[in-house]
């Protein structure tokens, strides 16, 4: 794929990142191939010919209305000019569309590659919706920059050229055009008060209706059971009259603006015709010249559209700036190291020591928005151990989980897996060793089977699904493992189980479970816990948890408090500390559920 190169298992944006928005636009121009050149030539030629055409037509009229005239050169010139305009138009449309498409494609692929290379840090810096806008419509607008520039020029040529042409035909015509433009503008402003579009009320009514619908849909099962669809429809549609009233108000504003637009050009043309008529009566102008003058007046009135295009160029620049900001975000640099092979793999291991999956934090400090959230964490997790990470919310548990598998990098210190700093591992080695499950997993892939496997074998995916207690419910879905994730009706707990299965299929040495069983009911949580202590016991498990039962099952508990490790040891030992017990009080079943859900 062009634009994104894969080197050493690492996605990088191609080429150096330009320093400025204009630099990026220049690259866009180069990447658009020959289309901008084609567009420039055809659009400008078209513009010039369009400028010549009224004159030629006027001349032809003058020649041809003379008695006994034959349609000769004058007509031929007109025909050639018309043909040129048409051909230029057609080619220009093709060039503008194709060039813009090519540029937007290049820019988008580049942004996509870069965002993926930047990893989760990118979404920490840019809100998701904003990022989609930057990669989507901003890339499109920036890609259209060459077109906008050329179109503006191509529109300015006939607009200004017409003024000159009017002046050349007769200076009085140019005067009439300019004065007419000013007078019409003043008169219109006096008659039509400036009305600012009041679209706020319309949008407000619209979102009221949407909110009501979403509210009602959240109660779909209740409504179905109670048979109250009609009642609910009435309640949801209550804002319709308000929507209609605001909508009509907007139309009235539009209609005013429409009057203005409809009247300026014809009145200008009549003004020019009037003055031209007097000059014709005085014998200074021919009928053909009068026709040409009228056409030039219309062309000249297009100056507003030309300025509008310059405005678009400004938008393209600011779009390029926004794309540029994304491209400037640093990509995650992976190393080339592999993990050492597990000693005596396959044989019975000792509890600690030689087993693979030893995780070590060395003086790790991580900052979010400049504030340290994890401070100076030193920690050794023996290979194959189950470690619970507990602490009040905001104590840095999730960040610790993120740093453990390099979803975030520490600002100070380092994290090692089996003695190798994570930053030196190749991407493939790192991701084969570490698996992540989240509270709200996002599933990708066209089927649930793919969403679990993500590159692993189907068999591994099935086994992982069984361990995560996801297999029974997946097999009951309309198309079982072939059901698309978007189309699978899944509860929060079911989604969590698919996420767990994905983690189990991936983390060969280390499983990081970040609050990944919070939505499971007690029966299912028990099944997953059993898998974690039985089938998956050869892997190191780092489990961020709220429940005391989870901590009690772990070999070791890491107790975080305001970003520091406050205690580390077996649950029963830590339980002696009232401060430790207090951690679980907010998470007790009743109150915790009331607050959290």
């Amino acid at each position, binding site marked *: *794929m062009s634009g*994104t190169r894969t080197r050493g298992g690492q*996605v990088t944006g191609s080429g150096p990142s330009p320093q400025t928005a204009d630099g990026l636009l220049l690259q866009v121009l180069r990447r658009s191939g020959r289309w901008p050149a084609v567009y420039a030539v055809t659009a400008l030629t078209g513009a010039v010919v369009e400028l010549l055409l009224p004159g030629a*037509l006027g001349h032809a009229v003058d020649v*041809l209305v003379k*008695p006994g*005239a034959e*349609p000769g050169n004058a*007509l031929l010139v007109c*025909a050639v000019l018309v043909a040129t*305009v*048409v051909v230029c138009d*057609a080619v220009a449309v093709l060039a503008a*569309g194709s060039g813009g*498409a090519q540029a*937007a494609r290049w820019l988008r692929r580049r942004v*996509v590659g870069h*965002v993926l290379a930047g*990893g*989760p840090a*990118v*979404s920490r810096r840019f809100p*998701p919706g904003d990022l989609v806008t930057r990669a*989507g419509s901003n890339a499109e607008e920036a890609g259209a920059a060459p077109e906008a520039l050329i179109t503006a020029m191509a529109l300015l040529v006939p607009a200004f050229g017409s003024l000159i042409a009017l002046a050349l035909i007769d200076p009085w015509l140019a005067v009439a055009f300019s004065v007419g433009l000013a007078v019409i503008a003043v008169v219109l402003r006096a008659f039509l008060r400036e009305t600012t579009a009041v679209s706020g009320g319309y949008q407000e009514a619209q979102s009221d209706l*949407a909110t009501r619908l979403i*509210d009602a*849909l959240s*109660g779909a099962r209740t*409504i179905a*059971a109670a*048979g109250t*669809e009609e009642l*609910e429809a009435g309640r949801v549609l209550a804002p319709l009259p308000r929507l209609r009233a605001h*909508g009509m108000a907007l139309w009235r504003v539009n*209609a005013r603006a429409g009057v203005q637009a409809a009247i300026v050009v014809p*009145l200008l043309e009549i003004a020019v015709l009037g003055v031209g*008529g*007097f000059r*014709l*009566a005085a014998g200074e102008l021919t*009928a053909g010249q*009068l026709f040409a003058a009228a056409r030039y007046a219309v062309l000249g009135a297009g100056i507003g559209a030309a300025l509008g295009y310059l405005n678009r160029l400004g938008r393209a620049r600011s779009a390029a700036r926004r794309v540029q900001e994304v491209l400037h975000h640093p990509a995650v640099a992976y190393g080339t190291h592999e993990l050492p092979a597990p000693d005596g793999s396959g044989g019975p291991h000792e509890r600690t020591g030689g087993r693979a999956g030893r995780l070590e934090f060395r003086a790790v400090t991580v900052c979010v928005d400049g504030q340290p959230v994890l401070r100076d964490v030193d920690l050794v997790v023996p290979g194959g151990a189950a470690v619970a990470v507990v602490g009040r919310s905001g104590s840095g548990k999730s960040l610790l989980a993120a740093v453990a598998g390099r*979803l975030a990098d520490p600002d100070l210190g380092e994290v090692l897996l089996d003695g190798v700093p994570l930053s030196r591992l190749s991407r493939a080695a790192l991701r084969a060793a570490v698996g992540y499950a989240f509270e709200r997993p996002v599933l*990708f892939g066209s089927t649930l089977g793919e969403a679990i496997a993500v590159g692993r074998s189907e068999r591994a995916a099935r086994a992982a699904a069984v361990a995560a207690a996801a297999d029974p419910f997946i097999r*009951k*879905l*309309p*198309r*079982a493992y072939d059901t698309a994730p978007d189309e699978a009706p899944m509860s929060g*707990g*079911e989604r969590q189980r698919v996420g767990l299965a994905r983690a189990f299929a*991936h983390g060969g040495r280390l499983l990081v479970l970040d609050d990944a069983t919070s939505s499971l009911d*007690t*029966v299912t949580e*028990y099944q997953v816990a059993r898998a974690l202590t039985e089938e998956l016991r050869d892997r190191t498990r780092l489990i961020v948890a709220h429940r005391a*039962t989870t901590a009690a099952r772990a070999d070791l508990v890491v107790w975080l408090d305001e970003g520091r490790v406050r205690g580390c040891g077996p649950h029963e030992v830590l339980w002696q500390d009232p401060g430790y017990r207090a951690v679980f009080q907010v998470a007790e*079943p*009743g109150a915790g*559920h009331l607050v959290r*859900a």
Partner: protein
Amino acid sequence: MTAPPTGVGPEAGVREVLWRALRARPRHLARLLGWSFAEMAPSFLSGYAIAHALDDGFAARDPMTGLGWLLMLAGAWVAAAIGARQVLLSIAGIVEPFRDDLLTHIVTGALHGAATTGRGPDTAAVSRLNRQVELARDSFGAVIAVVRSFVFSVVGVVLGVLSLMGAALPLVLLPLVAGLALFLVSLPAMAVRQREAILAEERTASSLASMVEGLRDVAACGAEDGTAAVVGVAVDRQARATRGLARLTAVRTISLAVGGWLPILLVLAATPSLVRDGATAGVVLGTLTYVAQSLTPALGSLVQGVGVNGVRLMVALERILTTSAHRLPEPRERGAAPPGTLLRLRGVTFAYGPGADPVVDGLDLVVREGEHLAVVGPSGIGKSTMAALVAGLLRPAEGRVLIGGVPVEELDRAALCRTRVLIPQEAYVFRGTLGENLRYLADGASDADVEKAIDEVGMTALARRLGGCSAPVDPSELSSGERQLIALTRAYLSPARLVLLDEATCHLDPAAEARAEEAFARRDGTLIVIAHRLTSALRARRVLVMDGARAQAGTHDEMVDASPLYRDLMGRWDGAVTAAADS
């Protein structure tokens, strides 16, 4: 406002919806046509006035007469502008109700669809539908405007050219017809390309959105390359679609050239012969003005308007009609309620799809009137499906569900709703007063009944905090547990004597859960509780254990003996259960 018919193919549906939208507002349509004549005046008058201004005025050394003609033309333009305003408002009068109809269709469709499947479109889908509605409204307005303006411009030009010199008419009309035919021939291909471009753009946006949303998960799985490839495919497709569209648009300019420019050249070429037949310079100029000023722009907007907005309109409407197609609600006759609430399931089997394992397989169950049953099993095992089957929301593939001896599918909805009440896990509270929310299933409940229910279920403190039954409630300001309390009280008030609580207390603390369940147990009638916590099983008289392989029912002690899963759970969780019950 009636929803469009269902069961029709989207395209036929789309055409019918549009046609109906036009016919439904005859007054606005008449007004639209009336004012269109005013708007047409200049296109009829321009060439004529200019011809006379030249021939009778300026060229005849009588500039004041010429000026008079021009002023008349200016007046016509002003009248046309006023007409244009009225035309736009008439269009608004057609498309605003059209928008309302679409919204009504979407809302009822989404509600009925959600009621059928138990799930509706999510927030994003709702806002997408909203955008489609706006798109449909705007493009419908645009299409009406350009088609109408084209028709009237052509009529104006034809009349105008006839009034100047009839002989010139074929020179103008023939190329126009040819250009129009070319456009119409290219329209289907154009529509296909335009549709491809719209869909490709949407696909790119949605694949970008899911990439951004899943960035953390993509990194965690090391799936960067695969994701880049997937998004890349969408991006490439969009680029191809845009290029394809550009190519066809380029070809389309030819129809504009034929219809718009050729008449000018033809008139010029014919000028010597027209002059021989008595045409003046003014007449030639006037004819050219008609073409350049009215015909070419009108053809241009028609091509642009129909080629782009028309396709947008079709795509948006098809999208709206297919996403929100729904089964029409069954007629609401008031049939008799079944005698009693003895519940009997006979060999009930249900699967969500042909390739899926059955969720419920050959289930036999009898729940006697007044009994209290708890259903236990891992989530996703089919407990909620069983509740939906009992409630008559799903139809079993095999077997029967009988309430009071009557098969549920034979009960009409009203009778069914008076017989049983199902409260799902996700409690539904709407924006309204607390009283409206509580009386949702029991219209005529007295204040005393409501007070008693509030007290029994245990939401007295909540009712007080909210400010009593007349106080408005905002669901977004309530916790999940508080919403569940309201839904439970609502169910308590309903006349139904068969109560199905489908994890309806999962967000309550164990004490509140116990209180609510006990209130329902005391209430007259049958109670079936889908248990979220195992403590619910201890309170029930009988337990149904669903372990995926089979479903068995019995008392707690019987099930400890009969079901390994149940025994395992109770043994493993005995400590936790006791601890939770104590707190």
